[in-house]
Every structure is written in structure tokens, then in C-alpha cells.
């Protein structure tokens, strides 16, 4: 029995080893129109995006930003490779729209200063 298993294992490993070195591993496929356009329009040194890596990166970040796990895949499905990579690279560095009330507070202070130095004239109605 053990001998039989060993033979089977050796056969499986042999097949696996063979396929590693065979041309079957190279996945040749047709090139999409967008890849052609991007290559023609942009600098030649721009590498093609690894979609698998960019997807994993973007997925993790979207979940961190509170996107429901069930929706993440559907959201990523609509992005092209280069959009996906831009998203993955910039999600956390993008300017934060964040807390609008705080922002308005800052603007209010700026307005007050502008008012005080006479640049604008909008608070005069109030005593």
C-alpha cells in the first residue's frame, strides 16, 4: 500500500516538475485595445500593471476605509489595470475631504481675519 502511494507521489511530482519547465506555463494571450493605446500614448518605460498585486492592495485599503467586504470585488471589477494601480498607490495619500465641519471652522476663522483687516465686508450687519 505504502509502495503504491509512493509511486503515485513520485508520478505526481514528476508531472509537476515537467510542467514547470514546459512552455505551457507561459500564458500567451491576445493584448487588449487599452494596453495598446496606453503603450502608444505614454512613455515607453512604463511597465504594465500587475493586476493581481494591485487588486490585493486596493482591496485591503478599501476595506480599511469602511467598504463592505461583499461590495469590494464589484467595485474593483469596473477599474482598468492602470486605474487600479493609481487607486492602490494613492488612496491614503489623497487629500482628505474628511471632517467638513472642522474645515468650515477654519474657513470661518480666515473670514474673520479678512474681515478684521478690511479685505471683506460681510459681518458688518451684526453688532
Amino acid at each position, binding site marked *: 500500500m505504502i509502495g503504491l502511494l509512493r509511486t503515485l507521489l513520485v508520478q505526481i511530482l514528476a508531472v509537476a516538475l515537467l510542467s514547470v519547465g514546459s512552455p505551457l506555463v507561459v500564458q500567451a494571450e491576445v493584448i487588449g485595445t487599452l494596453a495598446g493605446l496606453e503603450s502608444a500614448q505614454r512613455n515607453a518605460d512604463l511597465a504594465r500593471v500587475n493586476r493581481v498585486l494591485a487588486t490585493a492592495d486596493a482591496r485591503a485599503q478599501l476595506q480599511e476605509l*469602511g467598504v463592505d467586504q461583499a461590495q469590494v470585488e464589484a467595485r474593483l471589477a469596473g477599474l482598468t489595470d492602470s486605474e487600479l494601480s493609481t487607486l492602490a498607490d494613492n488612496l491614503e*495619500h489623497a487629500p482628505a475631504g474628511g471632517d467638513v465641519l472642522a474645515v468650515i471652522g477654519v474657513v470661518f476663522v480666515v473670514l474673520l481675519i479678512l474681515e478684521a483687516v478690511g479685505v471683506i465686508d460681510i459681518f458688518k450687519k451684526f453688532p
Partner: protein
Amino acid sequence: MRRLAPACAVPASILLIALGGCSFNPPRFAPEETAGLPPQAELTQVPFFPQKQYQCGPAALATVLRSSGAAGSPDELVNEVYLPGRKGSLQVELVAAARMRDRVTYEVSRDLPSLLRQVAAGSPVLVMQNLGVQLIPIWHYAVVVGYDLDTGTLVLRSGTTERRVMGMRRFMSTWNRAQRWGLVVLEPGQLPASAQLDRYVAAAAALEAVGRLDAAGRAYTRAHEQWPDSAWPQLGLANVSYRRGDRQAAEGGYLATLALDPGNVVAHNNLAEILSDRGCVSQARSHAERAAALAKGTALEAAVAATAQHVAGATAADSGVSCPP
């Protein structure tokens, strides 16, 4: 690189009034900029979805989707484009959501007359604005639905206001600070006003890239009618045929692409792939070699090399197969 601004929010009426009063000082356009443009236009049929807190992205997107005939309510779109952690939506996600509804997402040229031309042609324009200043940005999405050249004003569906009238100068300062980003969302058979070949074909190719083949095919067909001398729409049609499994149509399409542009690397590569699969090995090799020479040093080099390897391992078919010259 496209900037990822996590847009939005803002019940901004107070700010807008505070920051500039209401004097509309009409901007002067050079006559050629507004040539052929009607002095006024307003798309009154465009629906209005008042935004909920922070959710101007879903509301603005629903507005342009509906007026292009696609489905989508702000509530549905929240799940697709709203980022809770950023309290806003990213441009690229708005684009993706429209694409998944089979719409061509065309970025308008970054000048006001071009934006007005879209409105005059019947397409509302989704715009990004920065209502704050560079240092303290307040990102916002709105939809331009009308304009009046004489008074120098625009009409926008914005936030909770169905018909916000805004001076063009004021609008320009908010639009400038958002890199003048504007988007029209089109049914695939429809061309935008003053359509630019490269941008339109890129939008169609993005549909192809995310697997929306019917929409991509219709957009390519329209583009091929509009620009019959360009190889790209022809290449797109061939690629759509290939992805649908119609290799015969694809082969014809790649040959037609090469007739328009003998140096199209994608057509050479894909033709090599098809020809080697059906046993036309010597023709496949010559296309693969041509593709390799053209792709040298570009982003496509590795993909083309993989094809060459695949072709090198192919075996010739019986003499019964008819191969192209």
C-alpha cells in the same frame, strides 16, 4: 497622474455667499471659442437628486446616469462609490460605476467652452469642484445643466439645490482648483460634442478591459463610423470579436487594422496568436517577429515575447488549411 480627491460634501450655500457676493461679471470669450454655441441652453429634463450628507458623489452620478438612460439611484450608488473612511467619493470610482452600467465615460476638454458645448449638445456634465482653497480643500461634485453667455452664468444641480445659478468666474475658480475635471456619461452609440478620437477610443477600450463587451462593441462601431481612417476602432472591434470567441471575425479585423496601420503592434501580436492556433505557423511567425520588433522597449515587450514563444512551439497544420498571404 490622476489625482484621487475623496470628494465632497458640503451644504455650501453659506460659504458661497460669504466668499464672493453675487455679482456676475460675464467672462469674455474669444469669438472662435464660442462659435456655433447657442447663447443660452438649459437641460430642464435632467433629474435632480438632493444629496444626503457627504454624498454628492452618488447624487451627481445618479443625475448623469439617469439622463443617459441608465438605471441607478443615489442610494444604490452609495454602495458602489462612497468611501466611509474618506466621507466622499473618488473620481475613478464614479467612472467605474458608470462603466459597469455600460456607459461610455468621456472626460471633457479642460476649458469652459468645451464644457458648454456638451451641455448645448444635450449632455449634462458631472464636474468636480474645490469649494475651499488649495490648502483647505472642500471637494464637491455637481452637474452642469445649463448656461447663459449673456449673463455669464451656469446652472448646476448641486448639493441640495436643484437649480444653482453660479457666475462663470466663480465656477472657474472652483473648477480650476479641481484640475478642471468634467465627465459626460454616454450611451455607447452616442458621440460627445467635439469628440476627440483618443479619449473616446480609450473610454471604449476601458469598457472592453472590464468585460463590458456589448457596450465596447457599440462604442467602437460608432467610433469606426466617425474616424474610418483610424486603426484603433477597428482593432477594438477585432478584440471584441476575439473575446466573444469569434476568431474568424477577429482575424479579419486584425488584418483590416494592419491595412490602416501596418505598424500596429497589438494587431500583429494578436494575429500571430490566432494564426498559430489554427496552424498557419509561418505567417504567425512573421507577425510575431514584426510585433517583437515594434514592441522593443515598450510596456508590451513581455506580452509580445510570450506570444513569440507560443508561436515557436506551434505545429503546422495539414495543407488543407487556408492561411492569409
